[in-house]
């Protein structure tokens, strides 16, 4: 982890933990600093505007909606951790995260702030452990979907794989951007701050 990363991640050791089925009509501070948001019509629409949902039928969206948890998480919160099986899919609505890969010689990373990105899909569908870290660089508004609920929906509706493919396509683009934007450091051995997302 380079200096920039460690200074960011070091500000909070929060881990994302979500309880399902909670009453979301009232904002509640979680012990880890996350704040649940009420799901009114505006936030529900915002939640629909993501790369996963835009490919799903209204019926399937409705099925997932019952398991959603929308919240604001503080800076430094790890949304996905390398080597740790994710319990949730994480849909980002606002804020900025760092997507990084741990290497023995440091960390290659990319700042990412595009709303609607879904994190955790690759590990979820492949059953492999995540190879990236996704850490909030500022307070982020997110929605979480429990892994078990999404996998159950996927198994009963294989047509969702098209939507899954779209999410994975963005994951691959992010990996390619990390490679491209960190090429100077890789090739020259210099240290650099995370590159801005294209």
């Amino acid at each position, binding site marked *: 982890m380079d200096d920039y990363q460690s200074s960011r991640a070091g500000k909070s050791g929060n881990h994302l933990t979500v309880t399902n089925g909670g009453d979301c009509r009232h904002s509640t501070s979680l012990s880890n600093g996350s704040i649940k948001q009420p799901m009114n019509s505006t936030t529900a629409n915002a939640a629909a505007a993501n790369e996963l949902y835009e490919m799903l039928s209204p019926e399937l969206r409705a099925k997932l909606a019952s398991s959603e948890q929308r919240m604001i998480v503080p800076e430094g919160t790890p949304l996905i951790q390398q080597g740790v099986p994710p319990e949730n899919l994480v849909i980002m609505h606002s804020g900025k995260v760092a997507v990084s*890969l741990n*290497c*023995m*010689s*440091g960390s*290659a990373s990319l700042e990412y702030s595009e709303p609607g990105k879904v994190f955790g899909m*690759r590990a979820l*569908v*492949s059953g*492999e452990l995540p*190879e*990236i870290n996704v850490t909030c660089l500022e307070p982020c508004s997110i929605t979480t979907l429990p892994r078990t609920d999404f996998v159950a929906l996927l198994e009963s509706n*294989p*047509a*969702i*794989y*098209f939507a*899954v*493919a*779209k999410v*994975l*396509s*963005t*994951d*691959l*683009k992010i*990996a*390619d951007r*990390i*490679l*491209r*934007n*960190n*090429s*100077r*450091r*890789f*090739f*020259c*051995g210099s240290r650099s701050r995370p*590159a801005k997302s294209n």
Partner: protein
Amino acid sequence: MAYHFQIIEDCLKCAFREQSLFCDLPREALIRLQQIKATSVYPKGALLCLEGQSPRGIFILCTGRAKLSTTSSEGKSMILRVAEPGEVLGLTAAVANSPYEATVETLEPSQANFIAQADFVRFLQEFPDVGLKVAKQLTHNCKCAYDEIRSLGLSNSVPEKLAKLILRWAEHPLELSSKKPNETALRVTLTQEEIAQFIGTSRETVSRVLTSFRRKGLIRVKGATWTITNRRALENLVTT
């Protein structure tokens, strides 16, 4: 121009189908694939798609190999990876309806099946198995990209990077009856300039390091055939 491979026009009769991450599909899906794909044969150096170009469709690489290159943030051309037969190219762009992320250029005479984007999207929607295969291919591509990032980030010296690259290629050696025991023959179709783009250095440095490898008896180079003569020494160069 004569190509030294058999053109596979019928996906249902393709002997390599089961080895491919994407093509091992149910019969109904293969029949539809047969209807929507256009088979073409390309010479070495053909550009299948260009970085930044609007997506036209996908290419299933049936025979041959192709390099995927992009432009770094410093404006330098860099090779992301080399695609092998069975791989689907342009998938990210076609699925996400976004510009191609990389330029794809054949490294040798190749056969590729082209499917127009609209047909491919319909194909995906019609056959859930195809969606699953696409997801698997993208998952695999992500893993390759992550490995590439880690690999490049860990290698410090050019000899180490080059040794690592040669050892990676050695995972798919040439089958040569005349080869000596403990030697591994490879077919390297990349130019020294392209190898330089692969490991982020200059062509001159690649040339110098290759000469050093040859003098030390690590490898033997004869045209496009490289032979690893001292694998242990190459492995010793890789410290990470």
